[in-house]
C-alpha cells in the first residue's frame, strides 16, 4: 500500500475513532443517571460494551497504521520537537484506548456479562475490583491526555501560529 493510501486510511480511521469516542462519551454520561436494575440500564450497558469494543478494535488498527506510517509534520511553522510532543500524546491516546478496551473486556467477563459458554460462572469479585480500577484509571488517563493535547494545540496556536485543534492524529 502506498503512502497516500495509508494516509487516507489513517485519516478515515481517526475520524471514525473520534465519532465512536463521542458516542461512548455520551453513553458514559447517561449510564449513571439510570437505575441499576432497569431495562434501560441493561440496554445502555450493552450499548457501552458494543461501542467500547468497536473503539478498542479501531484504536488497535489505528495504532498499527501509526507504526507503519507515522503522521508527518505538515506545518512548517511548528518546530519538530513541539510536533513530537503532541504526537507522543496522541499515540499514547490510542494506547490508552487499547488498554481501556482490554480492561473493559476483562471487567465485563469477570462481571459475568459476557457468557459465550452457557452456564459458565465468571463472576469473581476480587478480579472485578482490580480490572474495574484499571478501567477507571485508563479512563482518567485518556481524559488527561485529551486535555493536554488541547492545551498544547492552543499553546502552539499562540506561540507558533500553527492552527490545528485535532485531538486524534
Amino acid at each position: 500500500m502506498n503512502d497516500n493510501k495509508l494516509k487516507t486510511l489513517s485519516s478515515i480511521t481517526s475520524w471514525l475513532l473520534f465519532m465512536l469516542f463521542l458516542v461512548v462519551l455520551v453513553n458514559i454520561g447517561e449510564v449513571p443517571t439510570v437505575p441499576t436494575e432497569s431495562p434501560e440500564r441493561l440496554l445502555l450497558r450493552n450499548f457501552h460494551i458494543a461501542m467500547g469494543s468497536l473503539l478498542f478494535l479501531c484504536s488497535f488498527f489505528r495504532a498499527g497504521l501509526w507504526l507503519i506510517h507515522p503522521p508527518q509534520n505538515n506545518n512548517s511553522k511548528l518546530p519538530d520537537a513541539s510536533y513530537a510532543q503532541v504526537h507522543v500524546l496522541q499515540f499514547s491516546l490510542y494506547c490508552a484506548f487499547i488498554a481501556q478496551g482490554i480492561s473493559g473486556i476483562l471487567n465485563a467477563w469477570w462481571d459475568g456479562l459476557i457468557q459465550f459458554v452457557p452456564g459458565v460462572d465468571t463472576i469473581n469479585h476480587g478480579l472485578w475490583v482490580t480490572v474495574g480500577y484499571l478501567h477507571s484509571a485508563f479512563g482518567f488517563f485518556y481524559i488527561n491526555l485529551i486535555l493536554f493535547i488541547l492545551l498544547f494545540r492552543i499553546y502552539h496556536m499562540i506561540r507558533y501560529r500553527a492552527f490545528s485543534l485535532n485531538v486524534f492524529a
Partner: protein
Amino acid sequence: MKKYLKTAKKRHWLLIIILLSTSFYLPFLIFGAYPFATKINLPEDAIKELTSDKYLPNYYESTSSYQGALPELTEEQKLLEENAFKNWDGGKCRFCHTVKSDDRDRMAPNLNKIFGKPAGVSKNFTYSKALIQQRESGLIWTPETMDGFISNPQGYIPGNRMRVEGIEDAETRQLIINHLLRESK
C-alpha cells in the same frame, strides 16, 4: 518511525509517565476505590466476638420495634424511600452499594442486614485504617450510628474512604435507613 522516535525527547515521555501515574491515583482519590480486594477476612468467630457483649435487637423480624416502627407505605412513598437511596444528589448510595439479598457486592459492600453488624467486617474488602480502628473500638452499625455516619461521613469516622458529603436533611437520612430496614426483611 526511528526518526520520529528520535525527535521525541525524554521530557515528552516524562509527561506521559506523570499523566499515567496521576490517572492511577485518581480513582482512589475521587471515589475511594482500591485496586485490589484483600483476602484477609476476619474469621466468623472474631466477628461474633465483636458483638458478644452488646445487646442488639433483631432489626429484621416483623415483631421487632424497628420493623414495627416502619410506616405502611403507598407505592408513591415506597418510591420516595428508594429514590433517597438511589438518587440522592450529593452522592448516590447505589453507585457503590447494593441492598437486596441477592445483589452482589459492588465497589463497596452489600448493605443487606447491615444493622447489627460490626463496622468493617464484610468479606473481600480492603478497609481503610480508620474503619478498622472503629471496628476494633466496637462500632456496630445500628440505625442510630448509620444516621450519624451518613450525616457527616468524614466527621463521624475521619479518614474513611466513603467520599461523599454528608446528608444534612434528617428526613432523607431516615428514608435511607427505612429503605435499608425494609429491604433486609
